[in-house]
């Protein structure tokens, strides 16, 4: 991630001097990544969209402070995580997550849907089943602790390496591995409780 940002160095430099075209290129390149992190962290598309846009506004305002263009992606991920943490606190204070129960409609990428009575023991063959699993995992993620959710989102959903995650959190790789394992085991337990 450090060595090969998806956007050329010139684009980042252009964005630094306030070039809106360069900024647009950065937004278009990274919008999916930022939006998905936000969505998996918050579990709500509207909140995720709003948050992702705020992230890019922060990028535009503070990209002058970025000294090494090669570190743009970790820098962007860090900004995204910071925004997610703040938004999570904000929503939690307003009891946003407390209202949700297993019987209430939950959101998928296709909009709200009634909670499926799904037994994850079977194979997800149909589209409905696939969507149900997505939603099932999302709900399980939201039940995790915030730092555990971050680890799973970054490693299992975004595919970051242990090294990259270690740099983001300032942790050794071994610690990242053990914490990630603990997070996965906790998620397994949460998902099992959902089905029983």
């Amino acid at each position, binding site marked *: 991630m450090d060595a090969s940002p998806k956007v050329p160095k010139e684009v980042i430099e252009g964005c630094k001097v306030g070039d809106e075209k360069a900024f647009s290129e950065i937004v*278009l390149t990274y919008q999916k990544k930022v939006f998905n992190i936000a969505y998996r962290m918050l579990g709500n598309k509207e909140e995720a969209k709003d948050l*992702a*846009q705020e992230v890019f506004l922060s990028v535009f305002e503070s990209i002058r402070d970025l000294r090494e263009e090669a570190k743009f992606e970790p820098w962007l991920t860090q900004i995204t995580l910071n925004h997610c943490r703040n938004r999570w606190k904000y929503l939690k204070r307003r009891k946003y997550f407390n209202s949700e129960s297993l019987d209430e409609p939950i959101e998928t990428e296709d909009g709200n849907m009634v909670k499926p009575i799904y037994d994850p023991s079977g194979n997800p063959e149909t589209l409905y089943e696939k969507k149900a699993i*997505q939603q099932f995992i999302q709900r399980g993620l939201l039940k995790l602790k915030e730092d555990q959710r971050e680890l799973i989102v970054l490693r299992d959903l975004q595919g970051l390496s242990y090294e990259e995650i270690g740099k983001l959190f300032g942790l050794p790789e071994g610690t990242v*591995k053990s914490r990630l*394992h603990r997070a*996965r085991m906790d998620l397994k337990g949460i998902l*099992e409780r959902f089905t029983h």
Partner: protein
Amino acid sequence: MECEKVRDRFSSLVAGELNPLEEKAVREHLASCLECQKDYEGFEKTIGWLHSVKDVEAPEGFLSGVFKKMEERKKMGSRSEDAWPGWFHTLAQLKLPVQAVAMVAIVFVTLYLTKMMPLEKPTLKDIEQTTTFGVERKMEAKLAQKEAEKEKEAKTLLSEAPKEKRMDEGVVPEAKEETKSPTPYPPKAKVSAVEAGHIKEAGKAEVPSQEVGKGKKDVMSKGVAFLAGKPLQEIVLRVSDQDKALSQLEELVEKFGGEIVKKEEGNILLASLPTASFSEFKKELEGMSPSKKAEQVAPQKEYTEGMETSSGVKPKEVVRERKEPGSPVVDKESRTTVRILLVQE
């Protein structure tokens, strides 16, 4: 291998990160332990589901939304900027270092406090003045008390005056004593010195010192009035028959409403007469003398001179005495005291 250790290696087993020996040991345990096997199956499924989760596309109009928000933020920023006065923006643009601003603030505060100090001093002075007032009042009270005591003493002396051999010898030393003694009626110069001392000690209060000066002047004038009652008239009466003259003199004094205050050594009389009838009494007295003349001894000047030095201002009465030595000294009750010396011819 224990179950706990096997479970701790689930992630590594799924990711294929275990070395062959470890992997073999874990798999052997899973084959023999149904509980761990069940746990591992669940874990494997969870990881499989997680990896099955696909990224969703960003909502449409995401980029335009970012620019829309950017414009809104600019508008908000300009509104908030408009809320501040122009000079604030100018200062903000200068980007003055916080330390510099703090230093300037400290300097101003120091100057302010330094200027405040002299303003506090008068307050202290006021306190000292108050104290001075108190001291001066005490002084005045003491002076008044001493004055009263002195008056008493003088009356006693007046009544005992005939014991002295000569009037001038009795009165003048007394006056001298008064002049010399600094405590009851200190000379003006000394009073000033004392005042200055007080002022220095008490904090340079001018107004109280003036009041004290005034008080002292009053005391001095009172002293003059008091001394004016003393027998300063002396008449030498030459007679042929002293006893006869004495009885005549007593009758004369009684005739003019006066009284013999004291008889001394048989030939000295101290008489007190009403001032109005004193001149006639004097004429009658001259008639008594065979030589038709009663010698009048001038009033003692030491007293008045003493007063001059003590007061610094010559009282009018005293000046008049100097010009007219023969004129009687009028006491407070309009009585004249005269000392009559009978001399055998």
